[in-house]
Each structure stands twice: as structure tokens, then as C-alpha cells.
């Protein structure tokens, strides 16, 4: 009985907007007063089957970027988590705190810092390159900002601490006697890692991958500030349809398509999220 009120609130807050979006996507509602509404699938048909539809193309492009960022961030976070769990010893919690310290400031401010302080033509990175004579003074590296590189870098930076946490949790709580047993039985450190440590940490790795994959699928802030015209992600299209070039009906089609994609990803990876990360055991069957 006590669960019903919060459950109702969650359902209303989660499903209500989706229902409204669905109505917009089918032209049963409109954001322009006075515009007639009637069931119309044409926006869906255009998005799904329209020849050379640019929004569909942007959708797949965004998925590629998202996958790339997720894989790279997870791969980058693993050594970090490993260092914290196995090498840092008594410094691991202070170091963990340092790792997440930037997140006490707003995400937007950190992105603007990358854009305006670090990567722009007179930014820190170019200044360092000039000081080291790796680039002619006054000549900025063109792909540092408003590029795929800058989007990738900012998303990598933004997500790596979060991604390191579930891996760290698994490694930290792993039964270290198994690794000792492997080395006692003659396994090298590398072999013990690949045959014992890594397989046991997979639930954390997959959880970490999902942690970054799902939110970045709808990312729009980072591309908005550090992406160029050719690097905007699917989330930017949705944002623009609801903001600067308003067409909520078409925007709702894109938003529902994105929600459906995230749901599919959740179903695909959800089983791994059920695993108790502290156990460091194989994924749930």
C-alpha cells in the first residue's frame, strides 16, 4: 500500500511526458495554437522510410559516436579503477574523492571551460603547443574545437569518473585470494589478470559501459558547445525542434525514436545491471 503513491508519481512523471510526446508525434496535438490536429503518420513515415532522411542519418551517426565514446571511456576507466583498487591502497579513497572533485561544479561550466579556456584558438592547449614549438605561434590546431574530437574528449572527460566507479566497486570487493591462488599455481601476473581478475570484473565493466552508453545516446549539451555544424548529435536535433526551430510534431517523432532505442538498450544490458557489483561474480543468468 505504501508503495502505491510513489509508484503513481513515478508513473505519471515518466509516462505522462511520453504519452504527450506520442500524441505530438501523431499530430494529435500541436504547439501552434489554431493549427488543426488529426491522426497523421507522415512524420513517422518520413523519418523511418523517407529517402535520404537526414535525421535518420544523424541518428545512426550519433549511435556510432555514442558507442565509440562508451567503449573508449570504459577502456580508459579500467586502469584507473584497477590502480585505485589494487595499487593505491590507503590512498584509494582520497584519490577517488579527487577523481570526482570536478563534479562538484556544474556540467555546463565544465564544458564551457573546455570550450573557452582549453581548446579555443587562443586556449591553453594551443598556447602549450606554441610554447613547445610543436605548432607555429598564432596558428591554431583546427580540429581541437568544434569537431568530433572535441565532442569525444569532453564526453570522455565527463563520464570517466562515473564509469570508473562500478569497475572499482567490483575490483575492490573481489576475492583477492583467487588471484593469489592463480599466481601460486604458476600463472604470471598478466595471465592471472586476463584469466581471473578481468573475467570476474566483467559485470562492473558492462555496468560501466551501460552507465555511459544510455545517457550519451541523448546527449546534446556537449555538441552544442564544442561541436561544429557537422558534429551535432541526434539529441541536438530534438532540442532544436523544441526550441530554436520549433516543430514539436517532428521533434516528438525523434524523441520517441530515441526513447525506444534507449529502452532496447536497457533490455539488452539490463540483466547485467541486476548483478550485485559487490560480489564480483559472473553475470546473472
Amino acid at each position: 500500500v505504501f508503495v502505491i503513491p510513489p509508484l503513481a508519481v513515478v508513473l505519471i512523471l515518466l509516462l505522462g511526458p511520453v504519452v504527450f510526446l506520442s500524441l505530438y508525434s501523431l499530430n494529435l496535438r500541436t504547439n501552434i495554437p489554431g493549427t488543426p490536429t488529426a491522426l497523421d503518420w507522415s512524420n513517422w513515415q518520413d523519418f523511418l522510410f523517407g529517402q535520404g532522411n537526414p535525421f535518420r542519418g544523424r541518428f545512426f551517426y550519433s549511435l556510432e559516436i555514442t558507442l565509440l565514446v562508451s567503449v573508449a571511456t570504459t577502456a580508459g576507466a579500467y586502469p584507473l579503477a584497477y590502480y585505485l583498487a589494487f595499487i593505491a591502497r590507503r590512498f584509494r579513497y582520497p584519490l577517488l574523492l579527487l577523481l570526482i572533485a570536478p563534479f562538484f561544479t556544474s556540467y555546463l561550466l565544465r564544458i564551457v571551460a573546455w570550450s573557452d579556456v582549453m581548446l579555443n584558438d587562443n586556449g591553453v592547449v594551443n598556447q602549450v603547443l606554441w610554447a613547445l614549438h610543436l605548432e607555429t605561434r598564432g596558428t591554431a590546431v583546427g580540429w581541437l574545437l568544434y569537431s568530433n574530437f572535441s565532442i569525444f574528449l569532453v564526453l570522455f572527460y565527463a563520464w570517466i569518473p562515473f564509469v570508473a566507479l562500478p569497475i572499482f566497486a567490483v575490483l575492490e570487493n573481489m576475492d583477492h585470494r583467487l588471484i593469489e591462488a592463480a599466481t601460486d599455481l604458476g600463472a604470471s601476473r598478466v595471465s592471472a589478470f586476463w584469466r581471473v581478475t578481468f573475467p570476474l570484473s566483467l559485470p562492473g565493466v558492462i555496468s560501466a559501459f551501460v552507465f555511459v552508453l544510455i545517457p550519451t545516446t541523448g546527449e546534446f549539451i556537449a555538441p552544442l558547445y564544442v561541436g561544429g555544424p557537422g558534429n551535432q548529435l541526434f539529441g541536438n536535433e530534438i532540442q532544436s525542434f523544441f526550441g530554436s526551430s520549433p516543430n514539436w510534431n517532428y521533434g516528438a517523432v525523434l524523441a520517441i525514436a530515441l526513447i525506444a532505442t534507449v529502452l532496447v538498450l536497457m533490455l539488452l544490458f539490463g540483466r547485467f545491471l541486476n548483478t550485485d557489483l559487490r560480489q564480483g561474480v559472473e553475470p546473472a543468468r
Partner: protein
Amino acid sequence: VLASCGGTAQNAGAATPTPTARPPITAESGQLSVLEWSGYEAAGTKAQTNGLTAGKQYTDAYGTSGITYSYITNDDQALQKATSGGPFDVIHPCHENLQDYVNRGLVQPWDTKLLPSFSELNPFLVKAGQWNGKQYLIPWDWGYGSLLYRADKIDAADATGWELAWNPKYAGKVSLWNGASTNFEIAALKLGINPKNMDTLSSSQVQLAKQALIQQKPLNKLYWDSEYSQEQPNFQSGTVWITYAWQDSLVSMKAAGLNAAFLTPRQGRLSWFCGFMLGAKTQNYYHAHKYVESFINADACVQMTNLYYYGTANTNVTPDKIQNQDLAASLDLGNPRAIVSGNNHLQSWSPNRSALELAWQEVVAS
């Protein structure tokens, strides 16, 4: 006293609403919600960091704590925010979507008798701010849209028309505005379409313009949304050499020591005028009038012109009051009909704006 400050003979043609029983200003909360462009906040508010003194009369009298600003970055967005957000007491859009604001029931006519400076406003702009004979828009600022470019980086021979933004020589150094209607107007002018038709493009012309913008897209470093946090910083840092801009950017970039020039395209510049609208649901009717009066009075307008070098609607801002006479002359600031004179093309209402917005989205996504 207020009646004596009413409109001129011509302005008096604008019907004012029948007086209705409204609570006096002392009974209003004074919590003003304003939909505004960045840089135009009232003097004294924390948000006003550019040095504009307009609005000072109001904030001196009523303080700053009651004013809340919401921001717009283009006119399509302004209309959408006014429709789905708010309600706003005062809105500062440009004139082209005036009829949409009225038809959507978002605004109500001003009582021009409550605006002592109304009689000083440019009759041409006042007339253009009317719809169905009622004064829905109080004109305030006007200016031009063109390409701002680095004269020390761009060959003079290349800087003759809008095609400068399409010149592959400057790939990666161009930045157009993320404004759907404006970019289609630019593309139309570049394609040689009659400027009179730039806001009434046929379907085939929209497709042509869209293709031209898709062709131009790779040359852009970015499409800017914010003048002060994107357009001007990127131009100043040298990240871009050619950007769509309004004339205040010319002033700012020259002040920053850059060799900047404001293109006079052979196809003509774009021109615009903006002003204040009164929210239909405002509970601060008299506060809203006081607020707008503090912007349209001559002192505020002179200072705004000397800060941004935009034209103002107040006819008491004569050329002799403008500090940089050469710049004022080059921008024709003394001409009350400058925005429709010569080779200037006033941005106007587009009957197929939805199609343009979708086409622009396709350009961005392509």
C-alpha cells in the same frame, strides 16, 4: 499630464484599449517576467553587464529584484517560448512575427497614453508596430544584418556579396547564425532571388536555398546561437573571420582592436526592427508600461545608440547626439526609413515559416 503626452496626429490613429477597471500600480506585484535578448536587460540588474543604461528609470523607482529575464536567441524561438512558456509581462521580439503573437492571443495592445515618450517615436515604425489598428508593438531598436569580416584576412575582391560565406578559400573560418528564416533570406539573396520575395519563397525556391545552405555548411566552424558567448568571442579570438552579425559586433570588434568590416553586399543588407509587446495575461499592466517607458525615452535611446550603434525609434536621437559621426553616417542612423531605404531588405513575416524551419533542420542534420 499623461494625456498631453499622447501620440502625434499620425500616431493617434492607433486605437488604444478601452479603459477597464485595473488595479492601480500600487496593487500590482511588480514581479515582471521579461522575454528578452541577452544584452538588453535593464540597467541596475545583475544581468546587465554591457553598460546599457536603458531601464534605469524603472529600476531606480521599483528596484531590480522583481524583474526576471528569460532569454531568446532567434525570433522563431521567441515566438515559441512566448507560446509555450511564460506568461510574460513584456516581450522584446522583432516585428516580423507580430501577427502571430496577436493571432495566438499572446499579447494585448499598449495604452500609448501611459507612455510619455510615445509621441517622440518614429511614425513609420509606430505604424509598422500596429495590427488591426492597435499598437501591439512599441518600436525601440533597429539595425542591419550582414557579414562581419576580418579586413586583414579577407581579400577585398572577395568581400562584395553574400557569396563570401560560400567562398571555399575561407573554409572553417565562417560562422552563420542558427536562425532559420535569416539563413534562407541570405541564401535567397545569394541565389539572386528578387529580395522582395525573400520571405515568400516558393517551394522550389526553398529547395534551392536549402541546397545552397547544405553546400555552404561544411565551410562553417559553427552555427552560433549566442552573440556574446559565441559569435563575438570566436571572431575576436580569430577562430572565425567571417560571421553573420549585427552592427553592434562591428563596434565591439573595432573597440577590441580588430580590423573588422561590415559587408555591404551588392545584393543588399538585411534589416530589422524590434520592440516591446505587452503580455496578454500580464498582472503588471502599469509596471509593464513604466518599464517600457524607461527604455524608449530619449536619454535611454541616445545611450543605447552610442553603445551598440543601433538605430532607435526615438526621433529625438538626432545624428548630432551620436558620438562617432562617421559610423553613424555609414549606418545611415539619421534616416528614419533607413531599414527600407536603398539596398536594405527588411526581414518580414513569412507565410511558410514552418516549412523554412523544417528545411533548416534538414540543413543542420544533413
